[in-house]
């Protein structure tokens, strides 16, 4: 394409920089001597792994919200479904080592007096099958939901509301013991993954690196998508779908594609999140959890490559710190941050950085500065 005035090496450089940043955790954990101030203790590795999973989730939401203007407030559902699929595999790996020592049934089923494994738990003892379901379950749900919603031309705030309804309905369903997913407590007490003890420092570091690799993959997908004609079409759909349709574009298919792709990425993030935090329960489906994801993206900067990653890291870093020191303050800070960003910095962190870089004359164009829609447009989705 002749349209990009920037050199082709820019995305490669960006991915390289992110890759180096990801490697800081293993370096500080393994190579930096234990008495150094830069040494990272083993117990922090899964915390950073969790942040990276959230970063992937934020990138996935930005694909639909920042780029295509589809504000999903239910992306937590796809994340949680991927997480549950992984959790089911981890449960079955426990085998007879559970409290009730049943050879096949997970503890919660024995507790409920169930005699045999429900059919939908079949196959989850195999890793490949579980990974298949990690992709297929969120992908299929997103495809069907998107097809119904986009075909009826549901958009803007109405779409946001039905995505909230979707995740809320799933939360209520997963709370029920009869559903067979551990009810309230969810799935936990995992022992090992692919034969490796799940809590060992080596396994945790490997899981961290796998999440880092997934983040690089998600970013590569996001970059590629923006450069392709589809990326332009999504911007056109965001800013004037009727007009894009008038140019002869099948906007339904374009939206459905990016929506499903985004849900699959969210599901993969959930699958890597679960072994690192050691639990998956219905709270991941809560409407508030999904709203938080949108806040990460807004804070980081919509429709930017790195913005969602920065937003997810910053907001979750603050959350870890504040819920440890002043837990009652956290929700106010989160709400305040969202209001501040929407009103004062609609471009988010990336927007601020872009404006700054532009001021000091390093980039020819302000890039993302002021790119984000106004709060009114946010409401419309």
């Amino acid at each position, binding site marked *: 394409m*002749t*349209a990009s005035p920037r050199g082709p090496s820019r995305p490669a450089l960006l991915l390289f920089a992110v890759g180096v940043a990801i490697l800081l955790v293993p370096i500080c954990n393994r190579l930096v001597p234990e008495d150094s101030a830069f040494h990272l203790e083993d117990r922090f590795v899964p915390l950073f792994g969790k942040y990276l999973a959230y970063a992937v989730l934020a990138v996935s939401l930005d694909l639909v919200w920042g780029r295509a203007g589809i504000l999903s407030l239910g992306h937590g559902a796809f994340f949680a479904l991927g997480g549950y699929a992984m959790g089911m595999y981890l449960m079955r790996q426990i085998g007879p080592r559970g409290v009730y020592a049943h050879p096949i049934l997970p503890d919660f089923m024995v507790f409920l007096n169930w005699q045999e494994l429900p059919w939908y738990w079949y196959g989850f003892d195999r890793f490949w099958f579980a990974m298949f379901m990690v992709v297929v379950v969120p992908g299929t749900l997103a495809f069907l939901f998107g097809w119904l919603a986009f075909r009826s031309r549901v958009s803007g705030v109405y779409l946001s509301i039905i995505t909230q309804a979707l995740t809320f309905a799933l939360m209520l369903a997963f709370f029920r013991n009869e559903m067979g997913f551990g009810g309230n407590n969810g799935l936990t007490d995992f022992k090992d993954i692919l034969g490796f003890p799940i809590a060992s420092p080596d396994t945790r570091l490997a899981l961290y690196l796998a999440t880092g690799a997934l983040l690089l993959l998600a970013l590569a997908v996001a970059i590629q998508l923006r450069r*392709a004609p*589809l990326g332009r079409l999504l911007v*056109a759909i965001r800013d*004037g779908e009727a007009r894009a349709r008038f*140019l*002869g574009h099948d906007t339904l*298919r374009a939206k459905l594609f990016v929506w499903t792709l985004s849900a699959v990425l969210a599901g993969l993030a959930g699958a890597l999140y679960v072994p690192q935090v050691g639990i998956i329960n219905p709270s991941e489906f809560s409407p508030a959890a999904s709203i938080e994801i949108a806040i990460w993206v807004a804070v980081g900067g919509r429709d930017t490559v790195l913005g969602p990653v920065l937003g997810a890291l910053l907001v979750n870093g603050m959350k870890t710190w504040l819920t440890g020191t002043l837990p009652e303050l956290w929700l106010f800070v989160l709400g305040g941050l969202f209001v501040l960003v929407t009103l004062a910095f609609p471009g988010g962190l990336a927007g601020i950085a872009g404006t700054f870089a532009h001021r000091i004359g390093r980039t020819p164009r302000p890039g993302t500065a002021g790119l984000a829609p106004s709060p009114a447009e946010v409401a419309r989705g």
Partner: protein
Amino acid sequence: MAEHAPAAGRLLDPHILLYLDGVTVSFDGFKALDSLSLVLEEGELRTVIGPNGAGKTTMMDVITGKTRPDAGVVLFKGGVDLLRLDETGIARLGIGRKFQRPAVFDRLTVQENLELATQGGWSVRRLIAGRLDAQSAERIEHTLETIGLAELRHEEAGRLAHGQRQWLEIGMLLVQQPRLVLLDEPVAGMSDAETAKTAELILRLKGRHTILVVEHDMHFVRTLGAKVTVLHEGKVLAEGPVEAIQSDPAVVEVYLGRS
């Protein structure tokens, strides 16, 4: 719907591109179009004038399938009944329309806007991995020259001046190689210099495309020097060369006398 016998006869004439007869559109009893008839020849440049509310935009809505008439015949070259097609079907026939309000994509560059306009109908797979074929690339290049925006190709459309945005939108129509171009008030809000350039642009397109221009600006209409149709209260009041129209007493009374 009234089938007019002469329609088929007229359409045997291969020079006719668009044929409207007896087209009536009512909004709650008020007739926005009242038995309107209009014939456009292939390659013709036609201007349509008329006071506010005369039904000019409504006529374009009927041609493009946005509004269904209560009565009348609307046929395209070869006898294609436009009333049987939806908006997409009509657009695919090669009828391109520029709306009164400019609708370019502000966040995309000039070139990206034009590319997007040529990619209609591409599959998702092609939109991800495909490239523009040489022919389309050349057409875009050519159009950039025609609309005078070649130097601004990498500029975001949102940063263009009002007139440039209008030209870009005309360019987005042109790359689709339409057989009929409908322009609704293309010079509204333009400076005199921009208006003059727009007239030049349209005159350059004359002969290559069939063009129907709706405009209020009489100076602009005179510059185009094409055949003029005067609409008034949903009907054709007069039709003919600009000079004849300007001296027509009926036209002077309803329209020219007021502006």
